């Protein structure tokens, strides 16, 4: 089985680049999108095996919207989502506690930026059931 395809949806090009290097170093195929709309397009066209997305891009809730859109569509709801953010404290939301709650944060995993490469990889492996 070939290595998984991972889509990174984040408006921060430096973070995206760094994650891309870590993931490609492990042999994953990495796709990029800079906002929710482009992300949705890439998901439709490329059918990635996993999506990493930031909570806040152009708007404060773009990540939330995109994750709900994906999870409510039978064609994409099986794709695991890893939510990342640098501003957990700003929102006052208990992401770790809420991740997996289908009604309002329907994602499979959550990590707080900055993310250590080994933490990112182990999370991704577990979401892809590679371990």
């Amino acid at each position, binding site marked *: 089985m070939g290595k998984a395809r991972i889509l990174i949806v984040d408006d*921060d090009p430096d*973070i995206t680049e760094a994650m891309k290097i870590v993931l490609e*170093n492990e042999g994953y195929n990495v796709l990029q999108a800079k906002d929710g709309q482009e992300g949705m397009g890439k998901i439709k066209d490329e059918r990635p095996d996993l999506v990493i997305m930031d909570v806040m891009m152009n708007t404060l809730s773009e990540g939330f919207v995109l994750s709900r859109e994906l999870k409510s569509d039978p064609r994409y709801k099986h794709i695991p989502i890893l939510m990342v953010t640098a501003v957990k*404290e*700003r929102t*006052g939301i208990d992401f770790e506690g809420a991740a997996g709650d289908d009604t309002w944060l329907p994602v499979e995993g959550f990590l707080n930026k*900055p*993310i250590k*490469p080994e933490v990112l990889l182990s999370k991704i492996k577990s979401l892809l059931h590679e371990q």
Partner: protein
Amino acid sequence: MEGLLQSTSLVKRAYWLVRLRWAAIGVLMMSTLVASRVFYVLLPAHKLYIMSGVLVIYNFLLYDLLNYFTWGGKSPSHKTISRIITFQISADLLILTAILHYSGGIENPCFFYFVFHMIIVSILLTRGQSYLQATLAFLLFGSMVWLEFRGIIPHYKLLGFISHDLYRDELFVFVTLGIFLTTLYLVVYMTTSISFQLRERQEDYEQANMQLKEKDRIKNEYVLRLTHDVKSHLAAIQSCLDIVSNGMTGQLNEKQSDLIERACRRTSKCVAFTTALLKLTKMKMSGRLDKSMVPLKNIFFNTIAAVEDKAAAKSINLGYEMSPAIDEIYGEAVLIEEAIINLLLNAIKYTPENGTVKLTASDNNKDIIIQVRDTGIGVPEDEIDKIFDEFYRASNARKIERDSTGLGLSIVKQVIERHGGRVWAQNNPDGGSTFSFTLPKTAINPGEPPSTV
């Protein structure tokens, strides 16, 4: 602009008037008794007792009326409470006139008591109302005196007190009424001008206070935004550095690796700092706590688990003990755990290897007391009050750990005070220090702003 008292303080004053009236009724009955039985002043005592009775009933009704308007903690409108006070004062003037009538009219020096009403009304109500009440007082007293003077209503002599028929002495009546009138107006004039000045000053203070609060809110908003922006840059820097230091972009030579390591360390300190600042600011801004009854056992378990690796790395003996009487605490579990973890990490950081750090919980009827005791470096006595201040770092702590946020204890303080508790630090007689905080047992909500007075 005319400064007005807030309706809550008017309500307090209305109750105060009711209480004063009970005292006045007592004094009226006592003095009637003493005057008629001890000094044998001839007066229609039964009429005065009837007046006292009327006052008692009237005061009970007023008390009920006030209770009705403030039932269940509601606050009557400014207009309503002003009307109640106006009514009280006017009724008091009427009753005082009636009492004076039955006890010698103008010959009874108690007519000076009208001055009290003028002072009260000048402090509590508007200028117009105060002059109106002064006029009412003069009209009531003046017409009573005039009617007695003209013999239209009977005059009750204070036989045994004043021997002359002063009430029929034109000059006496005229001069007394003149002085009475000027006294009333002057009292109102003086009292209102002073009390309005005071009210204006109070309003200025209140306004300044509001502005300060607003400024503080803007400052917090600003810090939040700034810290957020800084943190996202830091996150990117850290991510890039981690990749280079992990060797994912090729092996580094020793010098390069050392420099990258240094940069990584400093960045992660910076991230820790912005995270703490975000947490603290967020906490200051958010409205209410999400409190519930939480088993203390769970909190101890989670906090000990969160720090035991760090303690083990320094061979520090980490222990805990809780009084069996304590079952649950009332608070927001995540925040309380955060506070305890901060205290434990501090204790571990500033305790030398092979030392002891102990977490305990005890109970003093009213509060639950949580303490973290260590065998560490202690806190210099003259700095012990400052260590909970934002960004403050004790001088001896700075020597051990150069880069630290100086926000950990501020977060603890913020969390505990919002729970209605208290935090403090003490040095142990046998070395080390003890950091303690209390949590109220009852489900009170001191974190919420108290209703304004």
